[in-house]
């Protein structure tokens, strides 16, 4: 059994009379420590799958398993515990708390964790050792995204889920953020899943899923992922 397994996952939204299948029988398996990329056009259901996997949303039917835990069977309280200890999120728009400094944002996350990493150490790791006292508004987009990555990894979770982490960043900044994520994956052995629109990014992944209309339409395993630095888009 794989580290992560989704079986026939279906998520249906009912809008008035018509049903929208945001995820329509998704099957996928991911091994521990893999750097995964999910691509697909807008509305394909990528965010939906990530939310379900991250315990942010429940499935309509199907089974979600992470490291032997059946996420799809958890109640709200268990999901909260799960998010607290096992999942780190990185969002497109960073989602930092504006009135807390970079360091405080990280501390806020680790405060409730069992065996977190040192927040300062983590910020140094993402290259923000000298910006800890800055508020989000005083940081550039790329820097803010690095704070949010630090926040996610400081929790010492089992998986890092990143929904379009470079969506709001320019080319070079986006690249450095991706390089950081790849480095975290390689050095700490954490499983990283990244959602993107960008086909080019599939080259850096160990495993790629293509989605469309709520279904996984292809899966590719990359034995020789390209380092981020060599990518162009």
């Amino acid at each position, binding site marked *: 059994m794989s580290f992560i397994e989704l079986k026939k996952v279906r998520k249906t939204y009912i809008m008035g009379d018509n049903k929208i299948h945001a995820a329509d029988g998704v099957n996928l398996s991911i091994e521990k420590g893999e750097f995964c990329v999910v691509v697909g056009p807008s509305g394909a259901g990528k965010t939906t799958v990530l939310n379900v996997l991250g315990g942010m949303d429940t499935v309509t039917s199907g089974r979600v398993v992470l490291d032997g835990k059946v996420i799809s069977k958890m109640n709200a309280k268990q999901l909260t*515990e799960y998010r607290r200890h096992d999942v780190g999120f990185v969002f497109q728009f960073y989602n930092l*708390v*504006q009135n807390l400094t970079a360091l405080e944002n990280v501390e*806020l996350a680790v405060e409730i*964790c069992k065996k977190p990493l040192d927040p300062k150490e983590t910020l140094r790791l993402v290259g923000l050792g000298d910006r800890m006292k800055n508020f989000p508004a005083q940081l550039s987009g790329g820097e803010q995204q690095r704070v949010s990555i630090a926040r996610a990894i400081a929790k010492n979770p089992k998986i890092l889920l990143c929904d379009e982490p470079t969506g709001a960043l320019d080319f070079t900044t986006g690249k450095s953020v991706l390089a950081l994520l790849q480095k975290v994956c390689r050095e700490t052995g954490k499983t990283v899943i990244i959602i993107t629109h960008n086909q080019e990014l599939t080259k850096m992944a160990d495993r790629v899923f293509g989605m469309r209309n709520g279904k996984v339409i292809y899966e590719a395993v990359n034995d020789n992922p390209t380092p981020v630095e060599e990518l162009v888009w």
Partner: protein
Amino acid sequence: MAIAGIIALGVAFLIGLTVSTPDIKKSFTEYFIQSNLADFSLRSESAFSEEDLERINGVDEVEDVLPLFSYDVTCEVKGKEYNVRFYATDEAPNINKLTLESGEMLDYETASQVVAITPFASMEVPELGDKLVVTEDSRNLTVEMFGREFSVPLFDTYEFEIMGTATSPSYYSFFDETCLIGDGKVDYILFADLSAIADIPTIGKMTTEVWVTAEDTAKYTALTQDYDKYIRGVEEDLNDAGDWYVLNRKTNLSYYSLSMNADKVANVATVFPIFFIAVAALVAFSTIVRMVDEDRSQIGTLRSLGYSGSAIASKYIFYGLSACILGLLLAVPLGLTILPIVIWNAYGSMYTLPAFHFTADFAMIGICSAVSIVATLLVTIIACASSLKETPASILQPRAPKPGKRILLERLPFWGLLPFKHKASLRNVFRFKRNFLMTVLAVAGCGALIIAGMGMLNSVAAVTDLQFNEIYSYDLTIGVSSDYAESAELSEFLSDKKYMEVRKERGSIIVVNLN
């Protein structure tokens, strides 16, 4: 902050209204105790004898007894004639003690000295050094002795000088005191030494009035039913003890009108609480709802980090509670002081006020605090609940607006004629009903409270006006002796002057002018 403010305001008002009446009663009670206000004034058709006084003293519950000479006479002051009420005692009265305001107290040796009561209503203003001369007509008293009538002098001195002015616990209202001489309205009230009063043959100094206090009066708050109940028993015993009229405090105009007015605030205080609590809860609710809405994405972030709903809600509960407690901390001292003082001063337009005494109604403060805290808690939980019920995934997204339904107005024929700008705002008003309703209710509630507050102040002031123009709609009270009341001469006089009799009481006829 808005929450702290509205709670402070609401609770302060509430506490203020609740303690105002007790404050008024307490202040007057203190004054009454300190000045030993009489519980009864005894009057008699004839003068009180030594035996009478002994019998009064013999009544069990009686504490102090003060016999005095009281008489209404006409005096000339600075060339004009006035109605003057005289009280004379052989030493400073130990019941209805005077509080000197200006000048000096009597030395109780010089017969010509008098102290005047601080004027109220339309009384004349006494000035130190003013000389009063008893007019010729008022100098004698007709007494019946041995079956014959004698005219005996009332006074040993006819000229008096005002030495000082003083307040008395039996005279402090905005009502004129009435008398049976001149135009029927007392212009001066004077306290004199008994040596100014003439000895009447075989009787000596006349005692025309006796002031009496009861033993346990100090145990009761004046102007309350508890006091009334206590005093009723004493009154009966005094009545049984002799042949005289027993007049309790309620026959004193000042005390009676005060007892009526003091409870007005208390009545208002019973209606307001519900209103206040409703408005405060509404404001607190909309504030917290707005806050939770503004923090939406932050709540989403916290949930994604694994914070539980209750941990997030506790932040708002903490906020609401600290605002509430801050409000309460502000409200209690404010409510206990400012509003009662404002109301007290409003009463100052009707009464000569004694020193103010604060009271604290701890039960009320406790109830107010408990209710505010529970209401804030409840309101906060309700406000948070809807946001925390959403899944973390959906809360990270902007709130999905409800599908735009067409509003009823759009079906009306003139809808198409309205400019777009107006259509859009009308639509918003009807689509966001909760916001709209809350704004309307909050504004209405606050407006109503302000108006009610102003109305209250006005109505206290308006009592004076109402009393004389609406309630006292008669024009004249005519004092008559019982045999004259039925005489043809009187009815002829009344019809001559176009007066209509409306009511007849012992010794007086109340009439209205038909013109």
